[in-house]
């Protein structure tokens, strides 16, 4: 007796397609988690080496020297050099390798090989950042740093105000990077989110179909625009425009960088906001108009709140893009780790730091670990940003705007 409902043999092609979908899908999910795991693992080596004191940490943190040497060395880290460290570490890495704390007993003034070039000749070495006025740089952290006999503990080092990853005593203060990241991201979102959302409202509700069919793909195409081109555009055009109109000290600054990042943020905010606005049932639009509201009132009071979670997600992805964007940040912000909140001072973001320093860092060194730590922070921040939104903010938004 045959079972009328027996399994029919699948076609081999269907079978293969189904399984390749499963494998590729699970693989990509696994890869995403592995990225996080490896980034975190590299960063974690930082903490273990510091505690154990292996060979890695020896080359990077020299043994305490005489008081004279300690006092003399930091003096030479003049204020003008803050932003220049990454330019020079190739040089001083070589120096660090030659430097043997056991042999080197003489005070520093003679050991010029340890001193980055620009300390003595800032103007020649790097004209752009060499002309930093002193008031932007705050020399006090250097002062407190120099009198310390012991090398700073890792935590103290990471939370200090100086990012100068290469030198006799490398300084991995993340505060300037944090400030730089925060101010460029804030500028980018303040410019990019409203523009993106307004453009989305325009094409979703106001523009005639003909205009919409041209504008929408055009803006979405911008999302795939190479960021190096945007960076170049900012570096040349936007920077000159800002320079001409505001007469600021630094040609490249957080504002120019923020504008550049906004250019990267707008298409992303636009694309997602537009999709969620278009997804609101058209009947709501009609119902609101039938009650005697204008198009603008309908868009603002009915459609936008109805699409609020989607629009918020769009802004959030925009923040993620601004936060993680590397090339524009390297090219247009001035890329100097200044401890300043001014929009007209250069900034250096986390992503730009990794981007510009990772290529030349000593593998497995403390600096290397710190860069991965930065990467981990990038990861954790964007992850928690999304998690908080998903778990908390979205519910609040829905409650606030949709009364649920």
């Amino acid at each position, binding site marked *: 007796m045959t079972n009328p409902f027996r399994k029919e043999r699948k076609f081999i092609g269907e079978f293969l397609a189904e399984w390749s979908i499963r494998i590729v899908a699970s693989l990509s999910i696994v890869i995403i988690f592995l990225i996080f795991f490896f980034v975190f693992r590299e960063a974690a080596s930082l903490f273990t080496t510091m505690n154990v004191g292996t060979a890695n940490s020896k080359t990077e943190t020299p043994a305490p020297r005489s008081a004279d040497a300690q006092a003399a060395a930091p003096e030479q880290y003049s204020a003008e050099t803050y932003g220049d460290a990454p330019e020079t570490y190739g040089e001083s890495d070589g120096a660090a390798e030659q430097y043997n704390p056991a042999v080197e007993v003489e005070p520093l003034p003679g050991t010029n090989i340890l001193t980055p070039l620009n300390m003595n000749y800032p103007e020649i070495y790097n004209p752009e950042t060499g002309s930093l006025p002193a008031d932007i740089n705050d020399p006090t952290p250097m002062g407190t740093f120099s009198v310390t006999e012991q090398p700073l503990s890792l935590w103290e080092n990471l939370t200090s105000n100086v990012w100068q990853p290469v030198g006799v005593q490398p300084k991995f203060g993340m505060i300037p990077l944090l400030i730089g990241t925060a101010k460029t991201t804030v500028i980018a979102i303040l410019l990019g989110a409203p523009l993106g959302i307004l453009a989305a409202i325009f094409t979703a509700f106001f523009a*005639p*179909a003909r205009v919409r069919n041209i504008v929408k793909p055009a803006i979405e195409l911008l999302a795939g625009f190479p960021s190096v081109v945007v960076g170049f555009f900012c570096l040349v055009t936007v920077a000159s425009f800002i320079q001409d109109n505001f007469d600021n000290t630094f040609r490249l600054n957080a504002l120019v960088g923020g504008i550049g990042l906004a250019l990267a943020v707008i298409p992303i905010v636009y694309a997602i906001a537009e999709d969620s606005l278009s997804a609101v*049932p058209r*009947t*709501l*639009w*009609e*119902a*609101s*108009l*039938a*009650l*005697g*509201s*204008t198009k603008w*009132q309908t868009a603002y*009071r*009915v459609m936008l*709140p*109805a699409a609020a979670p989607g629009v918020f997600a769009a802004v959030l992805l925009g923040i993620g893009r601004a936060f993680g964007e590397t090339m524009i940040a390297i090219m247009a912000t001035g890329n100097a780790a200044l401890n300043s909140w001014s929009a007209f001072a250069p900034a250096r973001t986390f992503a730009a730091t990794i981007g510009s320093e990772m290529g030349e860092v000593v593998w497995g060194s403390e600096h290397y670990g710190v860069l991965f730590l930065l990467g981990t922070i990038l990861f954790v921040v964007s992850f928690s940003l999304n998690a908080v939104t998903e778990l908390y903010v979205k519910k609040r938004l829905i409650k606030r*705007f*949709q*009364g*649920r």
Partner: protein
Amino acid sequence: MAKELQAKIHASAFSVFYRDKQALHSVTLDIPERKVTAFIGPSGCGKSTFLRSINRMNDLVEGVRNEGRMIVDGTDVYDKSVDVVTLRRRIGMVFQKSIPFPKSIYENITYGMTLTERKTKAELDEIVESSLKRSALWEEVKDRLKNSALGLSGGQQQRLCIARAIAVNPDILLMDEPCSALDPISTGKVEELISELKDTYTIVLVTHNMQQAARVSDLTGFFLMGKLIEFDKTRTIFTSPAQKETEDYITGRFG
């Protein structure tokens, strides 16, 4: 008597085109004040098009074009001097699908009122209560005005939409198949509501349901293929229609 039957809405040789396709062929009729006027007819016969032309909702459709005149209270609504927003505030509309805004019940009612003028909390409360009472919804929702309107049942949502429409105090209420998505009990409630509201409003109702038209309306128009075949007192239409097509339709021989 003459005053009571004064035409609120007067259409003369009114035609509507969607691009090349003619959806309404030269419709002429008078809709009296404070009566329920029903339009029946098979799908795609143009009855909804006619309804949506009264408050110019058809303007939202791309490629739409009108001919003839649609006169409400002595003014051609397609005249250049007419402000669509003001017009629509005078002519409320209830749609086929109940579409409460994704807001609270309270905000749904107050939305229309707060568009033009600022009202105090007390005034708003009062209007919310009165319009919910008029739409026979007050008892069911008075304890959860701040809850989402989307949590209401289909019939409640439709009555909320009616309450929302009458909260802005229009003269005319257009209803586009208001009961087509509702169960018989909710339909009964909405029909009851229509009968009550006709003392205050001029109601124009489009329906697929002939029994509904027979139950609630004073006048009935029969549309077929974009033409108004017959327009008369409801009783006349359903007992002794003048046209063969009307008789065929209401006796169920086609459509």
